[in-house]
């Protein structure tokens, strides 16, 4: 493995491919030629990339839930329920945690036990074990485009199987599916493995089949400052583009301050376009995804609905192409299909009220966009610098150095010296910048915003603030006031 940010040659790709497909017996089911033929027959309205493009052109925001259970028939039932009773516009297949760790043997046990006990013991759909046959059964049993949503550091085999099965979108990326989801996996390794997944999508693109790729925007979902997640999203977008990916959906997890949330989505879209152009990727189509609140949820369902609607509104007003939907069961556990559908209906109601309504430009919005862009530029430029122009190498080094530092990231490769907190309006700011390559101006700006809150609450600006902020939403507030 020699990581470098350049498109894998066909030889390299097909070499790696042999090994990948042998990781589990179902790998044998993947026949690229046959898959291309299969995908060519997928109608436009079942293609994820095309549906996103259409939505963006029409200026509407689509709703997509998260959901997945262990068995094929149950999963199909679940998907159709969410489509019909919920009104989902796009469907997910949330993959179980064993598959995410490539522990397919344990999946096998989980599948068997689920059959025996008549309830899903797996927290998602084990797509690799079900293979192309099973995954096509799902695809052919539903009426909306499908995407795999997981959190898998090495999802090469998974990607092979899902795309060959007509699932035209794959979530993840070498940073976003590592730092928040893994402990011991090196960044070099995940970047390399995700190059493969991107190359696979790029390969299909070369055959005229549009495959959508979506870096996981919210990261740890916990007080992530927009410039951190935007920088990661843009970097992963650039890495994907290098491998030939054309349909790129960049994500952002709601922070809670409306002005900041809208600024973040606007900054993300604009900067992504401009970086793609700067690096010469000309025909990429960028869409955006807004994640409803990704941190700890309130237990009360009425309050949870408030948090859900609030996310839908922000998504609509920001003009995001799609929104990922939470459910009233979020604080408790994996939702029933009814709770999941209720979350979608709530979301769709809010989205359709705000259909066609956008947040208008104000001085404050402009300012927030500027600060997010400035911070993001600092990060990305430094990553390029330490990578000596290679953004993949720069990322490996940059994470080590703390140029990218993800709050509460479980990975041992994450520096963990950055600490966020909310300012007096609830916007997420940098409490400690750790090794983030910010200018003094930016550091002072963040500090002064937090000092303002400190004065208002008559408290010290310290880690206690962060902790209080982490709990706040689940306790019915945005800001963890003293």
């Amino acid at each position, binding site marked *: 493995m020699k990581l470098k940010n350049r498109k894998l040659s066909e030889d390299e790709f097909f070499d790696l491919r042999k090994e990948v497909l042998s990781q589990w017996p179902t790998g044998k089911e993947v026949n690229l030629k046959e898959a291309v033929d299969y995908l060519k027959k997928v109608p436009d309205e079942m293609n994820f990339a095309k549906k996103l493009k259409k939505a963006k052109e029409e200026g509407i925001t689509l709703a997509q839930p998260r959901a997945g259970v262990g068995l094929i028939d149950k999963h199909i039932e679940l998907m159709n329920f969410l489509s019909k009773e919920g009104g989902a516009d796009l469907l997910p297949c949330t993959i179980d*945690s064993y598959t995410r*760790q490539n522990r397919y043997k344990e999946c096998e046990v989980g599948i068997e036990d689920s059959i025996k006990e008549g309830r899903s013991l797996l927290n998602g759909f084990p797509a690799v074990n079900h293979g192309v046959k099973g995954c096509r059964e799902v695809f052919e049993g539903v009426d909306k485009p499908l995407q795999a949503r997981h959190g898998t550091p090495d999802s090469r085999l998974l990607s092979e199987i899902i795309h060959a099965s007509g699932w035209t979108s794959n979530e993840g990326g070498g940073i976003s599916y590592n730092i928040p989801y893994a402990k*011991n996996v090196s960044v070099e390794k995940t970047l390399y493995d995700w190059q493969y997944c991107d190359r696979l999508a790029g390969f299909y693109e070369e055959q005229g089949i549009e495959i959508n790729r979506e870096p996981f925007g919210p990261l740890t979902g916990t007080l992530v400052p927009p410039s951190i997640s935007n920088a990661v999203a843009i970097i992963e977008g650039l890495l994907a583009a290098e491998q030939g990916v054309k349909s790129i959906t960049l994500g952002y997890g709601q922070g809670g301050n409306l002005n900041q949330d809208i600024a973040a989505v606007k900054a993300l879209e604009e900067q992504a376009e401009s970086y793609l152009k700067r690096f010469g990727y000309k025909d990429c189509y960028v869409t955006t995804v807004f994640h409803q609140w990704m941190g*700890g949820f309130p237990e009360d369902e009425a309050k949870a609905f408030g948090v859900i609607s609030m996310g839908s509104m922000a998504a609509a007003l920001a003009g995001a192409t799609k929104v990922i939907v939470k459910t009233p069961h979020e604080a*408790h*556990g994996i939702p029933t299909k009814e709770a999941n559908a209720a979350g979608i209906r709530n979301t769709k109601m809010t989205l359709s009220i705000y259909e066609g309504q956008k947040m208008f430009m104000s001085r404050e919005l402009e300012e927030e966009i500027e600060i997010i862009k400035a911070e993001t530029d600092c990060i990305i430029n430094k990553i390029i610098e330490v990578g000596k122009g290679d953004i993949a190498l720069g990322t490996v080094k940059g994470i080590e150095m703390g140029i990218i530092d993800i709050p*509460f990231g479980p990975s041992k490769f994450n520096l963990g010296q950055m600490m966020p907190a909310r300012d007096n309006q609830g916007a997420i700011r940098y409490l400690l910048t750790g090794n983030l390559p910010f200018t003094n101006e930016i550091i002072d700006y963040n500090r002064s915003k937090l000092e303002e809150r400190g004065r208002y609450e008559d408290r010290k600006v310290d880690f206690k603030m962060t902790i209080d902020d982490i709990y706040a939403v689940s306790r019915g507030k945005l800001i963890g006031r003293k």
Partner: protein
Amino acid sequence: MQDKKTIVLGVIGSDCHAVGNKILDHALTESGFNVVNIGVMSPQEDFINAAIETDADVIMVSSLYGHGEIDCRGMKDKCLEAGLEDVLLYVGGNIVVGKQEWKDVKYRFNAMGFDRIYPPGTSLERAVEDLRADLYKDHRAAV
């Protein structure tokens, strides 16, 4: 002053939820406990080895992602085998798949040998209180 009690803390299985773990570490340390945090994605063995090495009084298992029931099976037996019969076993987080009847969940984990079982949304104060009650017979503060 009573002696500091030692708690082995970690998130079991393939579970990557790190936020609660970091906060528990911080809060228990602040409350005067000696915290040995083995972090996320920890197999049963890591908990047990850490408990042996540090002569721990309590093992606090977190499970958030839904596979807690599978991941915790047989843990008590392994503790007994390792000679940790006196070490208390706590578990908390979102320990089962979905929103289930709490009575049933508690019953199942009790049967698995856990001493204290916590539902979603448990406050840290509650956990600290229980620890003090279980560890100090006179229920006085830990420090």
